[in-house]
């Protein structure tokens, strides 16, 4: 496989994952606001600012906007092409990479990604957004999930597949850990509280929903939301496909499938680092 092709497959799948994750984060937070009361401007800023910090784009954000208002933040995260990590930018990047390797992916996968691209590139998406943001996110999420599903069911499991897997899981591990980081700042310096206020509970469950982990968490721990359990679940669960540990394991597997080197040994820096991550987890 051409190195350039491997590179494009990696980024294609990483950007798809990114678009879906950002869609979930913004969606969940918009819905969360509906449940919170007494929101003044300051509290709103407090709510939105961490989301920008989570995506790691605060410098970029403040270069474009003065204040972290709901409108600015959502515009920045959803539509703004000047933000290289916005949903629209991510989808454009994913498609651009797919275009470079059009011969390596299936028609089904390409058509869906292309459809999603034209959806965000045409005024239609703005209309949907203005009518109902959650409907908009639903479209982004289901299309991204369809693309991920199509890759599972149509792509041949060659080297390129494992590059795509590596891209997807590194992005997912990154996003899950950042989502968790959202509430980290609100925690006391040492030790985790066992009981939480109603508002906090809402926010912690929002975190779970941002990672599509609400149902899985409930199955394991019941409806009681405890920050310690949430953190453990999102970081260390072996079975939840969005936990950092799960993603790091998958990343490690993908890297080893690419190089053919067995567990415990490494032949390049990427493997060395991912092996260390697995050990630390």
């Amino acid at each position: 496989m051409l190195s350039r092709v491997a590179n494009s497959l990696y980024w294609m799948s990483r950007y798809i994952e990114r678009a879906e994750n950002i869609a979930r984060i913004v969606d969940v937070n918009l819905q969360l606001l509906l449940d919170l009361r007494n929101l003044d401007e300051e509290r709103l800023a407090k709510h939105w600012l961490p989301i920008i910090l989570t995506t790691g784009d605060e410098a970029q954000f403040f270069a474009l906007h003065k204040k972290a208002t709901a409108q600015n933040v959502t515009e920045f995260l959803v539509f703004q092409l000047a933000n290289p990590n916005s949903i629209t930018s991510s989808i454009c990047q994913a498609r651009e990479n797919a275009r470079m390797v059009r011969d390596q992916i299936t028609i089904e996968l390409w058509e869906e990604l292309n459809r999603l691209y034209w959806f965000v590139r045409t005024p239609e998406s703005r209309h949907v957004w203005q009518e109902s943001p959650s409907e908009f996110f639903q479209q982004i999420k289901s299309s991204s999930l369809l693309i991920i599903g199509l890759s599972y069911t149509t792509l041949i499991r060659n080297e390129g597949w494992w590059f795509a897997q590596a891209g997807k899981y590194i992005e997912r591990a990154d996003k899950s850990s950042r989502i968790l980081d959202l509430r980290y700042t609100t925690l006391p310096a040492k030790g985790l509280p066992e009981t939480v206020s109603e508002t906090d509970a809402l926010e912690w469950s929002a975190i779970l929903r941002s990672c599509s982990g609400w149902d899985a968490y409930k199955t394991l721990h019941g409806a009681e939301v405890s920050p310690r359990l949430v953190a453990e679940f999102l970081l260390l669960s072996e079975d939840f496909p969005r936990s950092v540990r799960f993603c790091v394991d998958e990343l490690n597997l993908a890297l080893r499938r690419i190089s053919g080197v067995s567990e415990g040994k490494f032949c390049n820096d990427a493997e060395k680092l991912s092996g260390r991550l697995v050990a630390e987890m």
Partner: protein
Amino acid sequence: MATKTKTLPPACMLKGYDPEVFFDEMLTAGGETRPHYHRFHELFQSVTQPDFEHKRQSVDLAFLRQGITFNVYGDAAGAEKIFPFDLLPRIIPAKEWEYLERGLVQRITALNLFLHDLYHEQKILKDGVIPPFYVLSGKHFRREFVNFNVPRDIYIHVCGTDLIRDDKGNYLVLEDNGRCPSGVSYVLENRRTMKRTFPQMFESVGVRPVEDYPRELLRMLQYIAPAGVAYPRVVLLTPGAYNSAYFEHTYLARQMGIEIVEGRDLVMRDSRIFMRTTKGLQPVHVIYRRLDDDFLDPTVFRRDSMLGVPGLVNAYRAGNVSLANSIGTGIADDKVMYYFVPKMIKYYLDQEPIIPNVPTYLANEEADRKYILDNLEKLVVKAANESGGYGMLIGPKATAAEIEEFRKKVIAEPRNYIAQPTISLSRHPTHVADGLFEGRHIDLRPYIIYGEKIIIVPGGLTRVALRKGSLVVNSSQGGGSKDTWVLYGDE
């Protein structure tokens, strides 16, 4: 469907269609349907206007969804357009196609003999058939390759010859595209689309398939592999995702099951070409390049080319890698050389050209130049080395200022201009809006593959000038395309 046809009068879709004074592909001057359109016309009558509109919209949407688009140069980033597609197919009866096939085989044979001669003994120049000046001043003549033997002695492996029909319906060759002709992916995709849209028509009309093209192309590429390579690796070299024909490049590579590479993926070592893969360097034996000579190798041609492979020409000369098309075929695309093709056919094959040229005047010849300058408002003037509908004057449609501009150009650089009478291209019923059909001018580009045998896929790309009255069919200038049906029979 059956109930709908009862409620609507038959033939409503093409009712009131007027072929006017032009040669119409579908209707005779008297308004009769030509025999080879009979069966199509019959079936088309059962399509109602809402049906048609629905089909048209779903086809456009499908093209966009599949990313069958071309990039528009000089437009904002991300500007992609679909190549407009007209649902009415252009139909060619078997006997007419058989004639075209003979003509095209004759022409490509002569062109290959000419290129071989030009890059070896140059007999045709020495015998005074073509004045040497025209060749030596040709922008695309590669004197570095004189006495170089190309694999299997084939120069033009893939050719897209543009054919037109005049007001009497006679076929004429408009130009030979012997460098990197594009458009064949539209031939294949248009057909796929038509099959999905009108499946019942294909059963009863009897249309020859075109799906074989990628296989024939691959076979040819394998045939020209360097001697002694048992399993040649064939790749397609693209200028990259921003090239206007990028869709076609990926499409063909996928259909052939070969790797699509960019210049930066290839590297020359010891006069051999390798591609950079995740498992190290892998040898490459045949390159189907969709890149002009100028950009192939910055160490030999244009130094500023970022698209090529340094050292490629070196490997090519050493015989370790084959190129399709060969380097130096551009001279045959020179519109001044076009003038001499009938003479080449006579000289090399001792035959009369089967499909004639459009009468052509060379601005560099004293008498012709005088005629051109006196008749600019009647003629089509073309720059010798431009394509895509650029660098062209259509006298009857030009403003006085445009004519004066070309007068200056022709006088300044007579070698680089030719002129032709304005041909009234044949027309074809074409959907213009809301179920209304009007005649639009069309041309035809069949694709010829020259490998072990010469193979022409039945049909080709029918391009249509969608603007009313326009004679320019290029996609960059508001052209669209139609599916081209070559019939098994004559009716």
